[in-house]
């Protein structure tokens, strides 16, 4: 307080400051004290160490959980990447010079299809990858059905793909096939009850059979008696 101000109103201010109590003082001093005492006696909360302890306990759990989820996520991401990268691209339309031919090869023993390499020139848009570890036994193939077997590109496609897809082909009469009658006669004379047809593509001008890797499928045809 400035001296000037003090001098001006010192008297009434002193009077006011010396006022120790009012007629209507504290309603219940003891009650106020009890409340105050209760507040003063309250110990400060020690929640922090408990929280730190809980956090310390939970931290390894969270880390383990995070690692496990991260692994799963990375696996899924990798699979998605693989499938997206190795998408089946439809093969370009076949040139006019090529046509589908069937080459008949006589064989006594049942042939197991080599499924390690997929045929290159097939219309791959309709293909579905199948399991690699199960080679298809040709003996089980019916004449009116052809089975397309391709090597699966990766795990993701392996999971997604069905094992065997049966593809119906048009019925072809034996007379329509480009087989020399002498060949059939020789088969008969050799005592063979069936012969094998290999499906594949070859040039119209070429007379030789396409390489084994380029087979589109194999048909076993029984010979009539």
């Amino acid at each position, binding site marked *: *307080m*400035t001296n000037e*101000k*003090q001098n*001006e*109103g010192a*008297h*009434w*201010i002193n*009077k*006011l*400051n*010396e*006022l*120790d*109590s*009012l*007629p*209507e*003082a*504290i*309603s219940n*001093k003891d009650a*106020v*004290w009890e*409340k*105050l*005492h209760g*507040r*003063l006696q309250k110990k400060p909360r020690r929640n922090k160490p408990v929280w730190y302890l809980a956090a310390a306990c939970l931290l390894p759990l969270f880390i383990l959980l995070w690692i496990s989820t991260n692994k799963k996520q990375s696996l899924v991401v990798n699979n998605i990447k693989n499938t997206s990268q190795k998408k089946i691209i439809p093969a370009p339309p076949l040139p006019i010079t090529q046509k589908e031919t069937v080459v008949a090869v006589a064989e006594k023993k049942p042939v197991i299809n080599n499924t390690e390499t997929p045929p290159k020139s097939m219309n791959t848009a309709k293909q579905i990858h199948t399991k690699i570890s199960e080679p298809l036994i040709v003996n089980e193939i019916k004449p009116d059905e052809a089975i397309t077997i391709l090597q699966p590109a990766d795990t993701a496609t392996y999971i997604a793909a069905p094992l065997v897809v049966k593809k119906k082909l048009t019925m072809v009469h034996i007379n329509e096939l480009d087989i020399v009658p002498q060949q059939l006669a020789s088969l008969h004379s050799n005592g063979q009850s069936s012969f094998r047809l290999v499906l594949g593509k070859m040039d119209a001008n070429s007379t030789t059979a396409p390489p084994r890797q380029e087979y589109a499928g194999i048909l076993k045809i029984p010979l009539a008696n």
Partner: protein
Amino acid sequence: MFLKCIYSFINQHHRTPFMEIAKLVKEARQGSTAAQKCLFDQLSDKMMVLCRRYVKSREDAEEILQDGFYKFFKNLDDFNYQGEPAFFAWLKRIMINECLMFLRKKNIFNMVAETAAEEIALEEDALNYLSAVEIFNMIVQLPVGYRTVFNLYAVEGMTHGEIAVLMGISEGTSKSQLSKARSLLQKMLVQKGTDYDKRKAK
């Protein structure tokens, strides 16, 4: 325990001797509940008057008093006792801060600086002829903004700058509020004119 018995005995017999504050403060610092109770008993009435000068409602004033004493006891360890005037000034400051906090919470300091249309100078001499309770009652009748500025400026001796900072208002607002408070007090004094004249004559 022995001290507690003595304090309770004294309190029961309403002798209310003003025990030496320094001793009580020392014992209260050491955690003596009896000393704390004794300090509360000795100081609470005076502090209640102070709180009531700022806050009209008795219930609110009691709440503020409790909060103020709580802070007082909690911070007693940090207080360096340097005599009773300093001790009282510190306690008063705690209480005033509590009152201002309470008023600020109620958002009553949203005042706009206004130019007083009609200003009547307060004849402070006239206040000297009034009793402490009469002065108190007149101050309490002032609107809260006027009352707070008047208390801080005229009674506590703060400057307008300090008041502006404490209340979060401009200095101009503080000045105008003080001027209006004085005008209003003067009007109240005029209304009490008859009594005042009588007292003056005596």
